[in-house]
């Protein structure tokens, strides 16, 4: 027994030898791993950028303003809506640098109402300049073929004719942001460059049905500020819309319900998807604007989960009547 124990006892020399062999083995494995390690990853260029945060563009003194104008002429409707709120000068001052966030998501003609109406873009840009704005920028990130989207929707021509500058997104325009109270927008790229030197933001969207979220209006329109593989957010569409509303605090929103896309949104395609709802909504409360817009689609706030969620997050009120909206008929 003692003899067997002695045979299995490792002496100092054996131990050091084994330790050396083990060290060489570990060292070789580490060297091999280091040699094989690809810091960039497969086809990935990881550019570390600083997190950015969009400033608050809202005007606290004008909180909870809303105007609802009935009429089929967009130009007249937007003018009257703004007049009831004290005119565009209430929101845009001399020297302001304004960004119009339009919906140019698809390369479709204006008659399909899948995008912001070019006439409306031209009129709002014109009014901003009239109020003394020093610059007006029009932008969106349609992902697929942005140049065609701005051209075929008529937005590019309308904007430039009014003296506004269209910023078609480029990769360098994007910077990561994080919505602190959010769970989805974490270190996510957003269209940042067009916001440089901007001090007023106006969101402009048409009223549309949406296959995934039920409706695409003002809050959903901020989706066009996201870069990256944003389609993954469609799996949790109500949360992402709520977080987008947290991310952007606009000066003013314009929800164009002159022609609403009632079915087959957000792309539509047929004129039979559309209905003349002849309503222009202007508000400083994006939640209230969407809540009213839902009624044009024959829906309620309960049908569009992101509206009560945005309200719960303190982003506005779904009870638009509580804002005592000014109602005008110009038809």
């Amino acid at each position: 027994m003692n003899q067997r124990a002695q045979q299995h006892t490792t002496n100092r020399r054996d131990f050091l030898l084994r330790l050396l062999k083990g060290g060489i083995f570990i060292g070789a494995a580490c060297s091999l791993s280091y040699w094989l390690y690809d810091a960039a990853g497969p086809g990935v260029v990881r550019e570390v950028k600083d997190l950015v945060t969009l400033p608050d563009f809202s005007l606290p003194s004008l909180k909870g303003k809303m105007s609802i104008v009935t009429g089929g002429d967009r130009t007249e409707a937007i003018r009257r809506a703004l007049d009831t709120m004290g005119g565009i000068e209430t929101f845009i001052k001399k020297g302001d640098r304004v960004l119009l966030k339009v919906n140019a998501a698809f390369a479709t003609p204006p008659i399909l109402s899948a995008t912001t109406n070019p006439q409306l873009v031209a009129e709002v840009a014109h009014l901003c300049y009239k109020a003394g704005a020093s610059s007006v920028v029009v932008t969106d990130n349609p992902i697929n073929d942005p140049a065609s989207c701005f051209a075929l929707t008529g937005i590019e021509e309308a904007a430039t004719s009014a003296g506004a500058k269209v910023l078609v997104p480029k990769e360098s325009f994007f910077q990561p942001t994080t919505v602190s109270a959010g769970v989805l927008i974490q270190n996510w790229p957003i269209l940042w460059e067009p916001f440089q030197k901007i001090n007023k933001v106006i969101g402009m969207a048409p009223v549309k049905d949406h296959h995934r979220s039920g409706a695409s209006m003002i809050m959903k329109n901020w989706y066009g500020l996201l870069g990256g593989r944003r389609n993954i957010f469609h799996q949790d569409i109500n949360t992402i819309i709520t977080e987008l509303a947290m991310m952007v605090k606009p000066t003013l929103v314009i929800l164009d319900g002159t022609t609403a896309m009632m079915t087959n949104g957000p792309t539509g395609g047929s004129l039979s998807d559309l209905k003349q709802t002849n309503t222009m909504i202007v508000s400083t409360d994006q939640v209230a604007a969407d809540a009213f817009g839902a009624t044009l689609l024959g829906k309620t706030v309960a049908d569009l989960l992101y509206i009560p969620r945005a309200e719960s997050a303190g982003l506005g009120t779904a009870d638009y009547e509580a804002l005592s909206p000014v109602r005008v008929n110009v038809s």
Partner: protein
Amino acid sequence: MARTVSKTEIYVGCTILIVLLVISGGILLKQSQYNPSIFKPTTFQPESPAPTSPRASSPPDLIQYAPKSLTALTPPETFGVENLSDKINGKAELYLSAGFVRLVSQRFAIEDEPTAWMEAFIYDMGSTRGSYAVYSLQKRSEATELDTGDFAYRTENALYFVHGSYYVEIVASIAQERMVELILSFGDNFIRKTTAGSEAINEFILFPTKHLNKKSISLLPSDAFGFQQFDSIFTAQYEVGDTELTAFLSQRKSPAEAVRLVESYTSFLREFGGTELKSTLNIPGAKLVEIMDTFELIFSRGSVLAGVHGAENRKAAEALALMLNHSLAEKGQ
């Protein structure tokens, strides 16, 4: 007899284990911070040419289907499962759930009228069921039915049809008769030049024809009525007097699967506040659930799952369920 282990060996062993634990922790930490917007091949390529498809490196030029007076406004673009949403945004989910394979789209303009243009969308849905599903779920109620392809209709400015596994949309920028003629011609050319094996959809004939709105038959490819296990469900609208009813049926793999789905859907409805009522119908295994002031009737016959969905009137729902059961029996189910 165990050999003696020295303290040094124990220290070295523990050190190695600790190092391995630290490495594992680091990997887990890094993985938990995975950011798909950064760790991916670049997808934001606004100035890049047409996206690529998994099935074709060079998309087919759709000019081959265009009538002579049309000229290509853009090159053809191809989209696969991974980038369909780049083209049609939130509507991509509808196509993906129905088996979408590939989309080829291209714009054309009238030669002497460049502001009058159209865009053709050729969706390869992989099967006639897939193409019928997206066709039926987007069908415009105010439309003119056509004989083009397997199923077709036109509106003021667009043509929609199914040709085998292809679902085709041709949308014009203007509502003009000349443009509509060109669109129809484009569609005819596509059908004539494209071989598409059409498979029969047998479920159509299983619905009872009395009171049936024949144009209303739709195919829900997945998550029908909010229930995840309900895929490939056909629905049809019935008008009995002033009452509108929705019947549904689905061919399952086996009678056992159909029976199981009846049970699981009933449980699903109960979970969401439904109350199971005693069914007096002469249909074995039929379930009746009242939920949010509507009635759901579910049963199986052979390998067919069937029922009436969201009926406001119990008697009318039961009458339709009996008709449906009778129709299934007549068709040998």
